[in-house]
């Protein structure tokens, strides 16, 4: 599903954020991406949904090379990848409902189908009562859950989650991670960048550890710390 070859990312200011990253993630896999703050986890995820381009190296998603992707194809790639952003990236002037619905509207779904799917997913993350609120009227954890809802609402084949439980209490975090596991079981490849040691150690999956932009560990059913 996702193949990364000799990836290297140097930011314009000269900082080397990723170096020599090789990674193969098969369809329906569930991978934890761990590493210290600044290790390069978000940088790697950004490259997967083409929010940024690598300095060198190749990324293949479903055997399609991202570097060969025409600009016009980028929106379609992004629709096939649900992203839970570390900083949520909600539209401030749209209600919760509209924020989640937006991901379906860009795909020209019918109003009734949008309504059904959005209501369903908001229930899943426990925010059905906050449907008509604006993001600024929500708590940090609630905002994070809208972002999660938007990422999963159209059942994308790939789900990238960047610190999806950073603002959530342990119980809610647990529920959300269970939800991601369930989604993974329904034929979705899931990559989760996280600092949540408790969850990585409890819900055991493949763990890929980054350090200073390099992969230093990659083990099935791994732990947060080696």
């Amino acid at each position, binding site marked *: 599903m996702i193949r990364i070859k000799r990836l290297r990312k140097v930011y314009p200011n000269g900082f080397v954020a990723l170096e020599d990253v090789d990674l193969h993630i098969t369809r329906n896999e569930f991978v934890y991406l761990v590493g210290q703050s600044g290790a390069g986890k978000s940088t790697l995820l950004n490259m997967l949904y083409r929010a940024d381009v690598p300095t060198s190296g190749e990324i293949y998603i479903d055997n399609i090379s991202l570097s060969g992707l025409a*600009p016009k194809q980028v929106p*379609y790639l992004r*629709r096939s990848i649900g992203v839970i952003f570390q900083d949520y*990236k*909600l539209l401030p*002037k749209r209600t919760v409902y509209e924020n989640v619905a*937006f991901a379906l509207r860009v*795909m020209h779904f*019918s109003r009734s189908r949008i309504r059904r799917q959005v209501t369903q997913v908001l229930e899943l993350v426990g925010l059905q009562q906050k449907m008509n609120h604006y993001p600024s009227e929500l708590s940090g954890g609630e905002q994070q859950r809208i972002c999660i809802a*938007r990422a999963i609402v159209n059942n994308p084949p790939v789900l990238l989650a960047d610190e999806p439980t950073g603002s959530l209490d342990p119980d809610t975090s647990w529920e959300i991670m269970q939800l991601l596991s369930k989604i993974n079981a329904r034929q979705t490849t899931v990559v989760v960048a996280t600092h949540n040691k408790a969850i990585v150690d409890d819900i055991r999956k493949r763990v890929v550890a980054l350090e200073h932009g390099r992969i230093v560990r990659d083990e099935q059913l791994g732990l947060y710390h080696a």
Partner: protein
Amino acid sequence: MIRDFIFFFSEALISIRRSGLMIAISIATISVSLVIFGIFLLISANISNLSNFFSAKLEVRVYLKDQVAQTDIPQLKAQFESMPHVRKVEFIDRDVAWDDFKKNFPTIKLNSILSNNPLPHAFRLTVSETEQIPSLVTSIRTLKTVDHVSEMGEYANRIATFSKYTRIAGIILVSLLTMATLLIIVNTIRLTVIARQDEISIMQLVGATVSFIRWPFIIEGLIIGIIGAVIAITFLSFGYSLLVVKFQQSVPFVPMLFDQMALNLIYLTVFALGTILGIFGAYLSVSKTVQHY
């Protein structure tokens, strides 16, 4: 298609409603600059109206030699009428002219001294193009039957060049103004779009195509442009009719542009400029603001 249009339209309305202050400010700016533009159009229309009015009064007087017989007049008249740019030819009998002259100069006690009419027969030619007067005068002077052509030529020449250059200056100013209005409106819309840059990039990140993002902005630009134009036109037409009334009362001899057709054309121009610039500004702004991957 229709579903998409309804969606884009409702998106545009939502964003107008939710960015209230910003939209209000940009509508204000747009209508103010359209008012300025409209004022310039009205002024230049009035100036050209005025210069038409002056040139319509321009005439050339041709004085005939004494030996020209009364019977030659119709043929001469036809000859003048066939000349290019001559709109009207009027014969002035020397007796009528003498009576007029005596009426115009009552201080000269001619009547008592002189019973004989010293004036020649003449023609009054009305010219359609002020710029053509000098060449016309030159060609008339070559005729054998003509004694003398009135010295109005130089004056006509002056009015002609003046009105021509005023017209040119007017055109330059109006095009400058159009460009300025264009710049102000486009800039204003750009500022509102730049302020929503973050939103646009979020939309792109969740898979919206450029055209999907662009359409609501274009419709929004259109709505803003229309509202701005309508406000401007209301102000202009109200203000102008008020001004015309005042001006006509005070300076009744100066002809002001009254023709509703011409006025409507000006208002239509303002409206068109508002809407077109609204759309164009939005299109341009979004195009410059979206990330082209």
